[in-house]
């Protein structure tokens, strides 16, 4: 059985770790002190690049690379810490904020030092009242102890951290939506480019990082790049010759919920499979796994055929899904996929920011189609259309065969693909919310088509057995060609 490897969460359950003194006993702020004493800012940026740390917020973009896009000559530069954790199935940041806020502050300090940043805004979702209270208290303590404010620890650095509450909009977790919201406007995402690294909040270069990404920094600095890269697999990107390393290093705070016996946050090295993860979380509640959502509700679903897919950034991308924020939702054989999709589509229809027409009108449309199917009013027709072949009279012509068309399923796919096309990966919207809607809509429907068809045919929700409900990979283009990525070390 895979073992938990607690690094970010190591001292989470220590009593009073949220206070400066206790945090200090557990090496608190020593990593920041090491950074300012032993390294130049450029060295830190290089370490982060070499560590292969990927952004933990959803996109999985290389943090070091993101930092390298920030122009050095434009000041001020801002850091926005994204603590607007709203993706259904994700809840790891909440525990960091509520229990160990000083770790986040230390991560922010290291990032600020490396990038020459003086002002940080922590955008906390409005519902995290306790998290905000704890972080505010920790920030106050850090100011008192001289780790924040003017001339931090006698280094001449001026670093300020401010918390900024959100107000319940999911879209503010998107980096440009977050920036708009921080500027006091509606959280409607901006067109990219210009990317926030060049022109972000208040028109200045801005680094936007997730809480978990920032919390990794103290450990990279404290224990070194070599120690960090030993965790998690590094794959070979064979698209280039010679192959380039594709690191999936470090640990991930996997949030596991749904039909498991012990739901919760488990910190494990990247690269274990769904089966292993379910085992770590106390095993499945129920008989059989029907489906696993690997990265929050916007990630395409995995069927029981794909339980051996490793849950890391590269493997899941190859499986036409994503690790996203690491919110894993497990469903057992009693769950109805149509019902689950309806729930998710209601969420997206509610959370669309209303800026782009395909998303504003498409999300309620998709929701209505799924609602219709779930209510038993799904549209189906038997049509006769010329099907050419050898007809009864032995001559070439119309064979007179009929075909059953599930109109609503075709419509569902068409509407979803017109918000964002999951096959070509192009979206008709400003931000990636579009793809977050069509990914689940299309993948659920393609992979569990028998269950959708049954609901339309029978006029009510029918929960089929796992084997009957799932389309096998051989028959379906929703799956990738399944090959296991080769580890870089093996080459």
């Amino acid at each position, binding site marked *: 059985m895979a073992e938990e490897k607690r690094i970010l969460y190591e001292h989470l359950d220590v009593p009073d770790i949220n206070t400066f003194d206790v945090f200090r006993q557990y090496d608190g702020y020593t990593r920041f002190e090491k950074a300012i004493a032993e390294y130049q800012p450029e060295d830190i940026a290089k370490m982060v690049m070499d560590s292969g740390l990927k952004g933990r917020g959803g996109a999985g973009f290389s943090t070091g690379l993101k930092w390298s896009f920030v122009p050095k000559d434009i000041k001020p530069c801002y850091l926005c810490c994204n603590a607007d*954790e*709203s*993706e*259904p*199935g*994700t*809840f790891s*940041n*909440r525990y960091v904020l509520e229990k160990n806020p000083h770790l986040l502050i230390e991560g922010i300090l290291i990032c600020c030092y490396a990038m020459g940043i003086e002002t940080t805004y922590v955008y906390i*979702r*409005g*519902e*995290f*009242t*306790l998290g905000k209270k704890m972080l505010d208290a920790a920030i106050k303590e850090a100011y008192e102890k001289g780790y924040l404010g003017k001339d931090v620890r006698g280094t001449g650095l001026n670093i*300020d951290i*401010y918390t*900024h*509450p*959100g*107000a*319940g*909009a*999911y879209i503010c977790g998107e980096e440009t939506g977050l920036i708009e*919201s*921080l*500027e*006091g*406007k*509606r*959280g409607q995402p901006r067109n990219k480019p210009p990317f926030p690294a060049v022109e972000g909040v*208040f028109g200045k270069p801005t680094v936007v990082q997730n809480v978990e990404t920032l919390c990794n920094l103290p450990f990279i600095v404290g224990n070194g790049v070599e120690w960090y890269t030993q965790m998690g697999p590094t794959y070979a990107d064979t698209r280039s010759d010679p192959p380039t390393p594709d690191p999936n290093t470090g640990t991930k705070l996997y*949030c*596991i*919920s*749904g*039909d498991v016996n012990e*739901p*919760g*946050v488990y910190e494990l090295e990247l690269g274990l499979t769904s089966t292993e993860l379910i085992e770590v979380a106390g095993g499945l509640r129920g008989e059989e796994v029907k489906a696993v*959502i690997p990265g929050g*509700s916007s990630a395409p679903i995995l069927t029981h055929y794909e339980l051996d897919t490793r849950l890391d950034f590269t493997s899941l991308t190859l499986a036409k899904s994503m690790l996203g924020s690491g*919110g894993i*939702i497990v*469903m057992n054989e009693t*769950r109805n996929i149509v019902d*689950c999709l309806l*729930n*998710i589509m209601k*969420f997206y229809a*509610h*959370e669309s*920011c209303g800026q782009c027409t395909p998303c504003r009108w498409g999300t309620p449309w998709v929701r209505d189609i799924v609602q219709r199917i779930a209510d038993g009013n799904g549209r189906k027709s038997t049509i006769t259309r010329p099907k050419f072949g050898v007809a009864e009279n032995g001559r070439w012509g119309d064979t007179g065969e009929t075909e059953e068309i599930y109109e609503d399923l075709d419509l569902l796919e068409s509407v979803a693909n017109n918000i964002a096309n999951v096959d070509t990966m192009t979206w008709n919207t400003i931000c990636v919310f579009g793809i977050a809607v069509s990914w689940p809509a299309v993948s659920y429907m393609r992979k569990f088509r028998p269950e959708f068809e049954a609901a339309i045919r029978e006029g009510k929700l029918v929960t089929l057995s796992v084997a009957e409900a799932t389309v096998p990979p051989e028959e379906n283009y929703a799956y990738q060609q399944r090959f296991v990525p080769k580890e870089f070390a093996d080459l």
Partner: protein
Amino acid sequence: MSDELIQIETPFAFNEENQRAFDALIGRYPVKEAAMLPTLHLAQRQAGYITPAVMKYVAEQLEVSVMKVKDVVTFYPMFFEEPVGEYVIRVCHTLPCALQDCQVVLEHLKEKLGTDVASETNLAKGTTADSKFTLMKVECLASCDVAPVIMINDDLYKNLTPEKVDEILDNL
């Protein structure tokens, strides 16, 4: 929103404590407008909900048009433009909570409070006659491991069953 409408409302101004908090806020941002969300949170805490008078006051403080404030207030679900009960009960109903039977909790609350679920455009529908409670559904509260969850004002309640809900409401 016309000026006449604003004038018939009771005027609004921050009390001393909130004024201090507001003064601290404004210094954090290079432009005043950026303090919009925290300022509205303060104002809503004081006034109960965002009245046209509140919007006018916030607009003056932040040196933006009233329309800009209205624009923001209508976008974010946490700002109310109608009166709400003393306790706002938010029931999470997104997938992980739905898998753990949040519907049972919601139905139980509806029955116990004798009210329907508020919609964003009609908060009165979910508010009890004595204005003590407002019941509403919200999207994911990021506590899926302890589902089903509800929030009552600022507090989160976990692993709910109808019995636990009874206990919580009795202790309020």
